[in-house]
């Protein structure tokens, strides 16, 4: 049970990352490698502010803002300086590694003795709601801390989903979605697609950094390496989420993407429990994404060839 809860909680916190990857990769068709850097950046900024006794809410928001700034930088490199999109992301990601080390002053900042959003929600539950130390959940005894973290994750995801849903149905949000679909049309309708992309990449990296900030507080430390492979992790979750809902309708896809995040995290937790070597995790994730991107096209080609053979 605690395995399930911790996987679901991590899945919720990582859902912000997955939303961000969905925005760049699917809505803008832009493969944004900044992700790996901004995830750790969000964690680093938040961690260092928390150890300086800044309120966890402000520390978390500052982490997200830092990520958005990093995303805007990638957007600037790409749209204003004409750097290839992949390279722009790689440059910012690489630079961020040093920046993150400077921010933290060392490669790892523990957060065990500072208040975090997790401890705040735990206190809130205990004091205001009078929840006891151990909670009965579906017949299992669960520590309050775990339930509080799960509720926090669910709450953050709900707010983010709602905001994303409302935003992407405004004039600006609709124009942003159209930019990924047909930039020529968007320019012919009077919008600067460069600014659309820039804003999109900034928003996405804000979400990614928020995810890093939340995860650092949940696991009790920020690490300069924690962003490694997060883009591929996000892609895997997006692909699972899309397979779950099988539609392009915005609301459903957003929910699907969050479900994908949780499901993927659960699958990984179960696989690790069954004895999967943790060192192989990134290899397997990469192979999974490769398969998910390659197989649908391959299947289509095979069936078409069969159909053509049938005609001949």
């Amino acid at each position, binding site marked *: 049970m605690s395995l399930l809860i911790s996987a679901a909680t991590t899945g919720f916190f990582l859902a912000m990352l997955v939303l961000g990857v969905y925005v760049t990769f699917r809505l803008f068709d832009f493969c944004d490698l900044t992700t790996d850097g901004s995830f750790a950046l969000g964690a680093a900024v938040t961690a260092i502010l928390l150890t300086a006794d800044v309120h966890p809410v402000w520390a978390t928001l500052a982490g997200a803002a830092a990520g958005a700034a990093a995303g805007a930088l990638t957007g600037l490199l790409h749209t204003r300086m004409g750097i290839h999109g992949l390279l722009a992301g790689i440059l910012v990601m690489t630079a961020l590694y040093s920046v993150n080390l400077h921010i933290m002053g060392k490669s790892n900042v523990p957060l065990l003795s500072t208040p975090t959003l997790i401890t705040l929600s735990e206190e809130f539950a205990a004091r205001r709601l009078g929840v006891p130390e151990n909670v009965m959940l579906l017949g299992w005894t669960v520590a309050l801390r775990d339930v509080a973290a799960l509720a926090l994750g669910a709450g953050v995801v709900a707010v983010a989903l709602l905001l994303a849903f409302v935003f992407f*149905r405004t*004039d*600006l949000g*609709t124009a942003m979605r159209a930019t990924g679909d*047909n930039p020529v049309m968007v*320019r*012919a309708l*009077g919008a*600067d697609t460069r600014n659309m992309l820039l804003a999109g990449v900034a928003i996405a990296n804000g979400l990614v950094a928020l995810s890093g900030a939340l995860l650092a507080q949940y696991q009790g430390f920020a690490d300069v390496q924690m962003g490694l492979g997060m883009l591929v992790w996000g892609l895997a979750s997006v692909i699972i989420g899309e397979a779950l809902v099988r539609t392009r309708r915005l609301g459903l896809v957003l929910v699907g993407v969050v479900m994908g995040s949780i499901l993927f995290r659960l699958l990984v937790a179960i696989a690790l429990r069954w004895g999967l070597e943790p060192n192989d995790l990134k290899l397997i994730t990469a192979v999974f994404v490769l398969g998910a991107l390659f197989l649908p096209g391959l299947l289509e080609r095979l069936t078409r060839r069969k159909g053509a053979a049938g005609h001949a």
Partner: protein
Amino acid sequence: MLKATGLTKTFNGGTPNEVRALDGVNLGFDDGAFVVVVGTNGSGKSTLLGALAGEFPLDGGRIELDGIDITGWPVYRRARWIGRVFQNPFAGTAPGMTIAENLTLAARRDRRFGLARALSRRRRETLVQKVQSLNMGLEGRLDHEIGNLSGGQRQALTLLMATWVKPRLLLLDEHTAALDPKTAAVVIRLTREIVGRDRLTTLMVTHSMQQAANLGDRLIMMHRGRIIHDVREEDKRRLRAEDLLERFEDLRRTEALDASAADLLRNHYV
């Protein structure tokens, strides 16, 4: 009012593939004019349209729209004043989004995109009316992805989008060339209706001599980056498709003459 003076554009300058696409084009027309542009392949007619839309920087010349110099404006900025329908029927709409979502983006072409709801109830009502006016039965499919529609349907919707906010200039770039004859006729009928109803200032490039003869109140023929014929008013009304074909035939003969004359000279003197 559009006023273009001395437009020049050379592609691949300084290489063996150098093309003088625009060679000092002067063109002016009043509000409400419907100008049809014809020309052989490579005559510069599409380049002229691209220059007005702002697709590339000019080598020289100046473009004024309603007295304002827009020569240096990028595509998206001109688009607030200039509506456009492309030759490719899939270029003007976003395939992964619904009909309603595509159309609603056109409702504020003249302003910045803001944080108002894209498909408010009022916007939807206007949208249904607009789509009904096409008589294509699409008003019942507003929430379907536009990518599932035919080229003709998408082109009709693009025309609707380009003219929703009344443009100061409407650019039509061979917008029926990729359609089958029947669908092309429908789109031409719509073009005539919309341009006539809103008295839109229009520049239409076409390959079809029939369209060139039947549409518009002025005709421009281009050749090698220059305007070689400019037919107006009474002469335009009397112009028939056969006359146009004759003029193209003349052009071809002169060209052939030039080439054979050059050969003759070379044989005699070199």
